[in-house]
């Protein structure tokens, strides 16, 4: 069995404002390659906080974080930025598309940082991903000309551009209506099935979670259940 794509060991995180309290308490978990995992829990249970620690953007924690077996804890900001660029794709509740660039350019941005492929190749790959998500015809529009559901699909295409080891989502369907939520879920489902893409999605949508491979439930910063009860 190969090593997990992502592994967290005894993650503890405190907030000090207004009073010191423990948001995450000894959270340990791992995500295997190709798995589609959801994290659920009540509002304020620490789901987002956990995701930001796992994403390497938040470094103010105790415990250990490993990506594809290599330890990320204690690395410098620019090393972590490089790791995110290459191995992690993000989908947030908000799409965060840059309004002054076209859809295609937005998708290309992380690849331009990575510089693994030349400009022509990057543009071709971006087009490919827009095509997977059924929005290739929107490539040359500006983001403000797209509907909410379409924007979120562009954001997913952007997360996919560097063939990341894992895609992380924080309430990726939180801003969408039922129809668009279903479209996004179907995309995620298809990516895991057809491309073996690893997914870790934080959601408070129980319906969404039940259709993933595995649900991790948080309560007051602790993992209270982790299993395959879904499906």
């Amino acid at each position, binding site marked *: 069995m190969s090593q997990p794509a992502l592994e967290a060991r005894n993650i503890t995180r405190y907030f000090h404002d207004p009073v010191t309290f423990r948001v995450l308490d000894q959270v340990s978990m791992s995500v295997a390659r190709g798995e589609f995992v959801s994290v659920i829990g009540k509002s304020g249970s620490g789901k987002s906080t956990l995701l930001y620690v796992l*994403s390497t953007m938040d470094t103010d924690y105790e415990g250990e974080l490993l990506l594809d077996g290599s330890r990320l804890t204690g690395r410098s*900001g620019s090393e972590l*930025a490089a*790791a995110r*660029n290459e191995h992690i794709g*993000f989908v947030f509740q908000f799409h*965060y598309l*840059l309004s002054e660039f076209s859809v295609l350019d937005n998708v290309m941005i*992380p690849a331009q940082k*990575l510089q693994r492929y030349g400009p022509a190749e990057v543009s071709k790959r971006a087009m490919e991903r827009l095509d997977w998500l059924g929005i290739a015809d929107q490539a040359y529009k500006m983001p403000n000309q797209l509907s909410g559901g379409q924007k979120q699909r562009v954001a997913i295409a952007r997360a996919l551009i560097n063939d990341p080891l894992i895609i992380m989502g924080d309430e990726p369907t939180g801003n969408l209506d039922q129809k668009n939520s279903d479209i996004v879920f179907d995309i995620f489902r298809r990516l895991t099935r057809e491309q073996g893409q690893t997914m870790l999605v934080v959601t408070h949508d129980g319906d969404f979670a039940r259709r993933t491979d595995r649900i991790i439930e948080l309560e007051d910063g602790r993992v209270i259940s982790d299993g395959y009860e879904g499906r």
Partner: protein
Amino acid sequence: MKQSLVAATGVLFGIASFIALISFMTGLNQLLDGLVMNRSPHIRIYNEIRPSDEQPIERAGEYAESQNFVRSVRPRETGQAVRNSAAVIEALRKDPRVMDVAPKVSAPVFYFSGSTQIAGQINGVEPLIEKHLFALQDYVMEGDLRELKNSSNGIFLGKGIADKMMLQCGDIIQVSAAGGDPFVLKVIGILQFGLADVDDSQSYTNLRTAQQLLGVSSSYFTDLQVKLHDISLAPALAREYAQQFRVDTLDIQTANAQFETGTTVRTIISYAVGITLLIVAGFGIYNILNMLIYEKMDSIAILKATGFSGSDVQRIFLSISTMIGVSGGIAGLVVGYGLSAVIDQVPFETQALPTIRTFPVNYNMTYYIIGMLFSLVTTYIAGIFPARKAARIDPVIIIRGK
């Protein structure tokens, strides 16, 4: 995008006014400098009337060691001519630091015409050397300097004298030196220097005519006017010549000390105003970039989330501010040049400056380079702080806030 345009316009105005202002101010400086400096020799060699440094008693052996008091000392009569002028001129013309020497005879005279009589000064000069070294041509209202060189009885009058005595070219004037007989001369030209004192008293003839008027030999010169290749050497060379030729010398810097001060003050003012404008533009850029960063928080957050490091983000914002600086700077130079050209066309006619028709403008490349450098430096400094701030933004805080 719109704000970047506003910021670039700020730089544009700063640079353009700097260029226009400094070109105009230095143009004016050069004009005023020219007024005095062009007409002044870099070193004037002359013979001052004064008592001997050594009184006879000091040569007498028995008193040589004593402290001698001599009362009522009178200046020694040595005449006003530069001693040994021919040899001095020859030595000076051989000196590689010297551009040329213009000998001159000047003496107080009276001008007579009909019943009017005016006191003034006659200057016997070498007209063509004078034209070459001191731009005498610029002050000629009527007449031809070549004619003055060849005429044995021609005179160029200051405009003030001509006006007062109602004389025109072709008229006759009588001139007499102190204690001499009146000489009949023919007015062949009118000069206007724009300084009433000068125009009301000075007249020019060639050397020979003035020497005859004074009844002196052709090697009698009251002034040797030296022009150097490098004006900054004047004080040192003046001292050197004073020793070497045992003559009195006066360098241009000493003679026009107060004038230099005026020039310096005007230059400082132009720079101060120009730089102030650029600093104001710099604050504008700083403000706009700061606002831009608040507006683009989301973009910064997603760039950082997707793997751009702090220094990448800093570079992006610095390149925006550099673009503002370069585009605003170049546009500013162009507009500044345009403004200068407009100023250059504005009519500016004054009695004092007969050869000037429009405002003077100095198109010096240096100011354009300074303007461009300064716009780059200002925008860089104005950009670096907001860019650093952008580099430090924590994406988690932004993304959580949504």
